[in-house]
């Protein structure tokens, strides 16, 4: 038994009987004035940024919206990969698969739209070579995010939430990112560029690539559902 557990006798209070004396609850402050104030500040900063550079203003709004959704939804990419093993629950896993399916459709629409008009397809610099480096990197990232208690977006979100342990994580997150960026040229030349880079629409056509990716995601979704049923049976 861990040292920080304590055992006491039980009396009946609440629907689950419990006996431990809870510290008297602090009276909660009304947070609505803070919220309104914060909203005004966010809009003001967004306005100032937008005047200097419209793109930066857009980033500001998107960043805050993304953080808000992540926090309120308790969305966690780490948990989506870890909890099937730990709890047998795959609700977050399925949420991530749905998000992938939605972004697949959205990105295909953006890229196909540019392709049809004969414009350069946006985001093609993200089509990078696949090799063993991808697998090893993903594995290392997986270990890191379970130990740190959050992936990149989850860590940032909990930093804002005030979970102080992850302020430490942020320091090393930044250190690691800078270090990685510093040596990236060497890694790219020696390891990464050896693999083939595949853009699915080049291989299967636009419709084929979209259908294939959605089918794979559907398969994973069904698998996740079956896995949860089997685990909780």
């Amino acid at each position: 038994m861990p040292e920080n557990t304590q055992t006491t006798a039980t009396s009946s209070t609440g629907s689950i009987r419990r006996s431990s004396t809870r510290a008297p609850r602090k009276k909660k402050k009304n947070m609505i004035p803070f919220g309104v104030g914060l909203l005004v500040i966010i809009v003001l900063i967004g306005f100032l940024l937008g005047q200097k550079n419209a793109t930066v203003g857009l980033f500001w709004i998107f960043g805050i919206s993304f953080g808000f959704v992540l926090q309120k939804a308790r969305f966690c990419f780490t948990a989506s990969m870890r909890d099937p093993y730990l709890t047998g629950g795959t609700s977050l896993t399925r949420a991530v698969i749905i998000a992938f399916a939605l972004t697949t459709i959205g990105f295909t629409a953006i890229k196909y739209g540019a392709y049809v008009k004969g414009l350069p397809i946006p985001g093609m610099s993200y089509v990078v070579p696949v090799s063993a480096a991808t697998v090893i990197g993903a594995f290392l990232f997986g270990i890191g995010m379970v130990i740190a208690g959050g992936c990149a977006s989850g860590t940032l979100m909990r930093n804002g939430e005030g979970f102080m342990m992850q302020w430490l994580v942020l320091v090393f997150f930044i250190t690691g990112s800078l270090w990685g960026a510093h040596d990236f040229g060497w890694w790219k030349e020696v390891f990464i560029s050896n693999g083939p880079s595949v853009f699915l629409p080049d291989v299967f056509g636009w419709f084929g690539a979209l259908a294939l990716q959605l089918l794979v995601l559907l398969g994973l979704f069904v698998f996740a559902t079956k896995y949860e049923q089997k685990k909780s049976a």
Partner: protein
Amino acid sequence: MAKEIVIDSLGEACPVPLVKAQNAIKEMEIGDVLIVQIDHSCAMKNLPEWARKDGHNVEVEEVDDGEWEVIIEKAK
């Protein structure tokens, strides 16, 4: 006599609270109550999810801003 066990997991990141709770509940009798104190929002989701899936009675109480007690009654 049913026992009550309190785990202080304040300041511990997910999945530590969950694993501690899973270990603690293995050594408890049916009817015993486990209280896990957490302040990591992620544990607020997976602790109750696991405990309900395992068939226990679960209650979550927000004791302070961003601080929760997950109360689990071992049911099987």
